[in-house]
């Protein structure tokens, strides 16, 4: 790696980090899985990096009143293998296990992935399906943003330059809820050409709750509320699932790139939506 020259700070606390960000024109470094390649190609040349990697507070996992609070600096590997996350929020653990490869999972972080808002990243599908909340801290203040408002556009999340994500807040899964994340991998990068995260709870032979998050298809990950509405109240038969899944790309402007056309993405999005729901049922 031959990046341009930059200053480097490694704060020990969140307070130190937000002070550094407030006082400098700096960029946050978490796991570096997206930022470092960009710097390597000199497509990004930050003058100052604030490395959050040694802030112990940001790697906690706590359960609090029906919510699971996950520190933003948890690596994908830690999320995938945490017994607590596996039990309380199995969709996120499963999704984390699908990200990249072992090296990426050992370095990449939950908050870093969310902040980068890559339209093909895996986590955002699950975060949408989980209706996650994002806690952001800056000097002198903090705010909590619903995930539905958080992903603004491709590679743009609702994070100000002087803010850091400290944690993601997720619901503890109620018993009787099945979850699944299904993806078609882009063969070079391992990112999702399309990835679908589903949570389905049945009660009395009917689907009582369905949440479906989709990544890869559009400029940002989103909740497929049309699919959810068609599923809820249905019996979840194969025909019900097929009918609901067909709505996954409704009103969506599908991405087209080197690896897949928009038509193909739409088609496989329906396939993977059905598969994720079936697997969750």
């Amino acid at each position, binding site marked *: 790696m031959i990046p341009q020259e930059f200053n480097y700070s490694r704060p020990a606390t969140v307070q130190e980090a937000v002070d550094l960000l407030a006082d400098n024109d700096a960029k946050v470094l978490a796991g570096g899985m997206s930022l470092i390649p960009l710097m390597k190609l000199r497509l990004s040349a930050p003058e100052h990096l604030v490395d959050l990697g040694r802030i112990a507070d940001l790697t906690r996992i706590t359960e609090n009143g029906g919510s699971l609070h996950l520190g933003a600096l948890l690596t994908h590997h830690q999320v995938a293998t945490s017994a607590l996350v596996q039990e309380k929020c199995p969709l996120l653990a499963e999704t984390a296990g699908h990200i990249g490869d072992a090296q990426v999972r050992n370095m990449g972080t939950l908050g870093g992935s969310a902040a980068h808002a890559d339209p093909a990243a895996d986590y955002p599908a699950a975060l949408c399906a989980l209706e996650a909340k994002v806690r952001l801290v800056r000097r002198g203040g903090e705010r909590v943003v619903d995930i539905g408002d958080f992903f603004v556009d491709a590679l743009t999340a609702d994070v100000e330059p002087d803010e850091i994500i400290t944690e993601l807040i997720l619901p503890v899964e109620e018993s009787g809820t099945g979850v699944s994340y299904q993806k078609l991998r882009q063969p*070079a990068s391992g990112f999702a050409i399309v990835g679908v995260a589903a949570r389905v709870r049945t009660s009395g032979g009917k689907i009582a709750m369905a949440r479906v998050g989709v990544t890869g298809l559009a400029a940002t990950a989103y909740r497929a509320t049309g699919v959810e509405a068609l599923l809820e109240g249905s019996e979840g038969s194969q025909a019900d699932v097929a009918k609901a899944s067909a709505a996954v790309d409704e009103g969506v402007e599908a991405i087209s790139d*080197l690896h897949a056309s928009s038509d193909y993405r739409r088609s496989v999005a329906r396939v993977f939506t059905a598969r994720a729901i079936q697997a969750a049922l």
Partner: protein
Amino acid sequence: METTVSKKTERMVGKPIRRREDPRLITGTATYVEDIELPGMHYAAVVRSPHPAANIKGIDTREAEQHPGVVAVYTGKDIDHLGAVPCAISLPDLRIPHHHLLAQDRVYYVGHPVAVVVASDRYVAADAVDLVEVEYEPTDSVSEPEEALKDGAPAVHAEWPDNVAFTHDQAGGDVEKAFAEADVIVKERIVSQRLAPSAMEPRGTVASWNSGDETLTVYSSTQIPHILRLLMAGVLGLPEHKLRVIAPEVGGGFGSKCELYPEEALTAFIAMKIGKPVKWVLTRRDEFLATIHGRGHVDYYELAARKDGTMLGLKVKIIQDVGSFHMLLTPAMPTLSVLMLPGLYRFKNVDAKVVGVFTHRMATDLYRGAGRPEATHGIERMVEVLAAELGMDPVELRKKNFVPPSDFPYDTPMGVSYDSGNYAAILEKAVETVGYSQLRQEQQESRQQGRLMGIGIATYGEICAFGPSPALPAGGWESATVKIEPSGNVTVMTGVSPHGQGTQTTFSQIAADELGVDIDSITVAHGDTSTVQHGVGTFGSRNTSVGGTALVLAIRELKEKIETYGAFLLESDDVTYAEGVCTCNKTGKTVPLAEIAPKSWFGPTFPPNTQPGLIATNYWEPPNFAFPFGAHIVVSEVDPDTGEVAIKRYLAVDDCGKVINPLLVDGQVHGGVAQGLGQALYEQVVYDDTGQLVTGEYMDYALPKAAMVPTIETDRTETPSPVNPLGVKGVGEAGTIAASPAVVNSVVDALSHLGVRHIDMPLTPEKIWKLVQQGGSA
């Protein structure tokens, strides 16, 4: 002095011993170009064109030159007195554009070197690259070879507006008669897409100039140190005896380091200019832009046959995407394809027409297989197309047309002589091992369930053991020196330049058996032109067949000298050397090599008319190529909803002649298959309509990873080659050659009931999905 030579009886050849190279490689103690640090080292970084075609209106280097730490900036005018990047091939109408080390007044591809910055620090050098202001005037470009051949296409080189780089026509038999007599003619356009060779170690060079004695030492990541020395001496205008080239540890090449690249010569030029050692190592991004690509064929096939499946003749038009300049062997790539067009089949009528086409892209040249994968992919696809047309089983069709074992050596219509083989036997072995008839039954049943299962067969023959010298521009022989050190240990110096093949292991095995000594007493050295006798290098699966034979013959000569010394010491006139010991055939008295060795060097007395020391050198010229062959069978399943291909089984049955080390042969097959499968399913170098390289990172260029490669079952037959005393043929490229048609044939087979006859690589899920959606019509 410790003597380590002991009598040994255990044969090493044929044993799956572990690679003797591996301890240094896996403990990080190997020395690559990047690891070389010399006092006062400076660093070079290259300014590259962002345009596929543009006039250079001006270059302003002032800001870069004033940047702290920058020593010099060189542009085209500084090097126009130096020689061109060489192309060593001659063809009657070959057009060779002058390929300067740095662009002069035009750039011809994205990545074309325009200037080079030298600094005391590599970060500073990279910063200064961004400070060089180049004023470009972009002009129209052409990226696809078939577009470049059209009237009115932008001319890559103004002096040749048709963009034809060369043509090459070769015919055997009477193809028109064969086509007139045919009952059926099948036709197909078959593309072998551009690939990035993707050696794990990027290219790099360190050069050091000694102004006192005017000598230049060049460390380069190369497969051909001896040839590189000659070529670089020519480019720099330096006598070659003043130049020493060292190939240190080289982390793979796959053919891509069988060149003289502009940056290698520039690094040497700069070292001479500034009088300081200079290091230049390519980034991965630049490796994609400016290291040769492989393949790049658009081929038009016509195969003529009788109703009973007897193949009669083949017409092929090959369009080779050259890129904007020839590299060392570029024009030879499609001519190598031509040699292997008939595959393993005995039809005698072939007409091949090749056209090389200039495009605004990086040059193509040799990449693992080098011309043979394209030919094999073509004929093995066409056999399947013919089988489908005739409703014949592809196994039966192949067997009906194979060259029979009784016909060897077999003179092909392309003017080469296949050395030995039994093609039907190896296909039968593969068919039996995989359970072919049962698989066909499973396929029937799975189709009834709506599943898309396919069985793909590919047989292949390849030309390797390069090769007789008339076939190569700088000699096709190879050399070996074997020296028994005073301690009795053995130093082998080979002219080949292995870079991952495990040749130190196989040559140690060969030497251990030939000399009858312990394998641990043997060291194999290579890659330094000052210490190793002249050699040719490593490419075309030639190390063991050609270099190994030179080694054996050097040892045989040496054994005669050992016997001379043994006789002298035993005061006998009748001795035999075997298993590390000289024995008097009359008295039974013995003297071990460990005792002969020091006396051969130190005396005090020597046998009459015998030079001191035990050392012998052999240069061996092979009388022919060797022709390995094999049969690979793939079982795949296509997901009709997504178009994804899952490889359920991969069986490789290969015949590379005599096997020196089965572990290494399996390793070569595994790696080769992974690369061929990469071409079949994943890899492609993509330039967009504007000539920009789109697949310039591993984020977009899909090299198969471990989890994407299936378990590979391997098996062998062993047909010795009569071409060399070891009976070896070569296995470095076999897997790559067989895998792409085997995989594609399996997927086409899975979709054959939909009327699919051919699919071009890579078989992306979307391509397959579209075919399934459209019921087979592309």
